[in-house]
């Protein structure tokens, strides 16, 4: 099969996997009570699908195909172990054909299981991608520039803990809900950011982490429509995606905000995000994601870089600094300070962050920019080259190199 055609099948398969994986895993857990068995059977079914569909094309009812194969794999695994006869019976009575009954909250329960705070953050992300979004292990490895065996090991360890420590496949109780939601949002935000920076239009076929995280986020908001922070995070993701096309030029080089062609932004998506922010604000429970999305909306709605309402952005950063103070927030705030109060004031704030952020490339990039504003060319160049040494992202490297040799 020609490469382009194979990529089309892979892309179509990825869409099916994303839609179906969580349902399949959920149904198998409900039937067997065994997270690992369910998760691994579905993963094997996805791999089998990729192999078959690349030669035979995508079947007319891909969901039914996946269910039949997942179920059969689970049955085979169970049959190998006589002590599982009760589970085998439970699975045997589940219908052979058809897509069967979807429990509406299967995927939500699955997200909360995969994002359980008792699991390590990396494991939460890998497990969510595999069980809920239908990523294969090798796709996760590629997305995180890790080896396949490292990712597989992370997943196996998490599966073992889920079983041994009895992390239940259930919705969090009313009193657990706030904590558990915060944890799930943190996982999805990280997943999104990981995808966002590395999303280059012409990259070889790769599932887009950022889009999958936004998709999961919108599912979460459908199920939990009264959670303002969830709406805020969804708005934040939409605002980032809406500007994705403007972030890279025709050579796939990163373009800074000031030079982006704003006509290439997706203004319909920006409007959706703003509507989400307004809906969240009407609930009167302010939180960090809502503020971050409000800041992003200030940029997105501004007609030009020069017309940006920096005073408003600075006020929002002040609010964010009291609500969720962190060195990164302080660094971003300093960028607004530069616009409102000037580079000298900004440099004073940035310098205070040296201890906390000396390993972070953007700290040096921003400090370099401020020194350059103040005519300190040598200091500026040293900072930019320090920044260059600290990022592995090729688009960012190109941008920094260009600044360095300007």
């Amino acid at each position: 099969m020609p490469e382009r055609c194979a990529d089309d099948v892979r892309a179509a398969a990825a869409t099916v996997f994303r839609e179906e994986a969580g349902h399949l895993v959920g149904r198998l857990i409900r039937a067997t009570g065994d997270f690992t068995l369910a998760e691994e059977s579905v993963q094997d079914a996805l791999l089998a699908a990729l192999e078959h569909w690349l030669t035979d094309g995508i079947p007319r009812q891909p969901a039914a195909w996946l269910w039949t194969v997942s179920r059969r794999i689970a049955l085979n695994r169970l049959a190998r172990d006589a002590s599982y006869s009760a589970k085998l019976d439970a699975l045997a009575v589940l219908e052979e054909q058809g897509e069967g009954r979807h429990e509406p909250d299967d995927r939500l329960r699955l997200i909360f299981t995969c994002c359980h705070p008792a699991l390590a953050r990396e494991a939460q992300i890998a497990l969510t991608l595999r069980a809920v979004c239908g990523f294969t292990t090798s796709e996760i490895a590629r997305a995180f520039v890790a080896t396949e065996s490292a990712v597989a090991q992370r997943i196996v360890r998490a599966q073992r803990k889920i079983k041994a420590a009895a992390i239940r496949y259930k919705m969090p109780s009313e009193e657990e809900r706030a904590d558990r939601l915060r944890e799930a949002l943190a996982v999805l935000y990280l997943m999104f950011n990981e995808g966002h920076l590395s999303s280059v239009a012409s990259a070889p076929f790769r599932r887009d982490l950022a889009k999958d995280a936004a998709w999961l986020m919108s599912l979460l908001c459908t199920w939990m429509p009264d959670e303002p922070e969830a709406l805020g995070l969804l708005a934040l993701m939409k605002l980032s995606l809406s500007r994705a096309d403007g972030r890279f030029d025709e050579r796939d080089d990163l373009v800074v905000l000031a030079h982006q062609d704003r006509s290439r932004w997706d203004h319909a998506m920006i409007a959706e995000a703003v509507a989400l922010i307004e809906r969240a604000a009407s609930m009167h429970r302010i939180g960090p994601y809502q503020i971050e999305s409000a800041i992003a909306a200030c940029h997105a709605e501004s007609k030009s870089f020069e017309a940006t309402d920096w005073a408003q952005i600075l006020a929002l950063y002040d609010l964010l600094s009291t609500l969720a103070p962190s060195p990164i927030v302080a660094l971003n705030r300093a960028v607004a300070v530069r616009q409102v109060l000037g580079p000298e004031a900004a440099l004073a704030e940035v310098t205070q962050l040296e201890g906390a952020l000396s390993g972070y490339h953007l700290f040096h990039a921003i400090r370099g920019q401020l020194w350059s504003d103040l005519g300190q060319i040598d200091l500026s160049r040293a900072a930019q080259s320090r920044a260059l040494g600290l990022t592995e992202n090729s688009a960012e490297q190109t941008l920094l190199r260009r600044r360095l040799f300007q």
Partner: protein
Amino acid sequence: MKYILLFCGTREDQAAFDAMSPDELRRRYAEVGRWFAENNAKVVSSNRLQAPHTATSVSFGPSGAPVVKDGPFMEGKELIGGYCEVDVTGLDEALKMAKTWPGRGTVEIRPLVPPPGP
């Protein structure tokens, strides 16, 4: 599903505990007593351990011969002050108990290996 809650702390936690006034101590014990009363149905057994300096360790070297030594196995900053075996529906319920533990420090939750099945 059974778990052991291990009540752990650092030497600093221990020093803070030792520095408590009799009044504070009485209040703390009352809180701990209330915690046990509230969780009575889930607690299988529980004990407080004597201080680490009372510990004796028996280690088996490469030759398999037991060597008796004064002191606890875990040396350094962390110590275990007591434990509590609980029988609950899953990790979330054990977490809920640990989160309300009035004794401060750190509570480690360890699932017990279930008895062999039928």
